[in-house]
C-alpha cells in the first residue's frame, strides 16, 4: 500500500492486454491460409433473409432513461459507502444516532425518488 501501489495494477493490465492481442494475432497467423471470400459470407448475420441494415436504428427512450437513473442512484449509493464504514466507529463514540439521522434524511430522499420513478411508470418495460 505504498504510494506506488497502483503500479502492479498497471503491469497486470498491460500483461492481459498483450496476452489478448497475441492470441488475436496468433489465430490470424495459425488459421487457414486459403480463405474463400464471398459477398454472402461477409454480410452481417441474418436468418435467411437478405440483411436490411439501416443505420439510424430507433431505440426505445427507456434505455437512455435507465442509464440516466442509474447514474443518479449510483451517486447516491456511492455516498453511502464512506458513511457505512464510519458508522461502527460513530456508534462506539456515541454519535451513532446523529449519523443515523443524517443518512436517514438522505435515504428518505432516495426513497422518494424511487417511489416517483415507480409511480410515474418510468421503470415499466411493457
Amino acid at each position, binding site marked *: 500500500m505504498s504510494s506506488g501501489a497502483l503500479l502492479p495494477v498497471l503491469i497486470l493490465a498491460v500483461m492481459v492486454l498483450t496476452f489478448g492481442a497475441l492470441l488475436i494475432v496468433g489465430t490470424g497467423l495459425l488459421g487457414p491460409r486459403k480463405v474463400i471470400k464471398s459477398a454472402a459470407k461477409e454480410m452481417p448475420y441474418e436468418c435467411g433473409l437478405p440483411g436490411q441494415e439501416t443505420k439510424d436504428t430507433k431505440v426505445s427512450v427507456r434505455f437512455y*432513461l435507465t442509464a440516466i437513473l442509474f447514474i443518479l442512484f449510483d451517486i447516491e449509493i456511492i455516498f453511502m459507502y464512506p458513511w457505512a464504514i464510519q458508522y461502527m466507529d460513530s456508534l462506539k463514540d456515541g454519535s451513532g444516532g446523529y449519523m443515523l439521522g443524517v443518512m436517514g434524511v438522505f435515504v428518505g430522499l432516495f426513497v422518494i425518488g424511487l417511489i416517483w420513478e415507480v409511480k410515474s411508470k418510468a421503470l415499466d418495460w411493457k
Partner: protein
Amino acid sequence: MTLTAQDLLFYILGGLSLASALGVLLMTNPIYSALCLALTMVSLAGLYASMQAWFVAGVQLIVYAGAVMVLFVMVLMLFDLKSEIKAFSRGAVAGFMKLVAVGLMTGAFLAAIYNSADTLLGTSLAAHVDGTVSTKALAQLLFGKYVFAFEAMGVLLLIIAIGAVALSRIEGGTHADE
C-alpha cells in the same frame, strides 16, 4: 537520479490522460471521442490513486468512467451519427463562442492553479495512506462539517431524477410517431 514507482506512475498516467484528452479533440468520429474521454477518466482515477486519494479514485472510476461515460457511449452508438460527423458546426458565431469558451476555461484553470499553488507546493505526499482510514476521515468531514451541503445534494439528485423522467415523457419531437 532514481525513478520511484510514484514517478513512473505519474509519467505513465499523466501521458495517458494527456494523449487521450487530445484524442477527444482530434478524433472525427464522436464515438471514438467518447471512448477517449472514458480513457481520460480512467487515467485520472489512476492519478488520484497514485496521490493516495483512494476513495476519490474509486468514485471517479465508478461514477465517471463506469456510469456517465457509459451513457455517452450508449447514446452515441445507438444514434450512430455517421451522417452527422460534422456535427461540430463551423461559422463566425460558433467560432467566436468556441474562443470564448476556451478563454473562460483557461482562465478558470489558471486561477485554480494560482490559488492552490501555495498550499500544493508546500505539502509532500505521505508515503502510506490506508484507503479505509482516509475514507473515514472524509466521512467525518462530509457528515459533520459539510452535512448541509450533503443533504442539499440529496435534494438536487432527487430533482434531477424527477426532471429526467418528466423530460422523457414529453410528447412530440422528432420521433413523435414511434
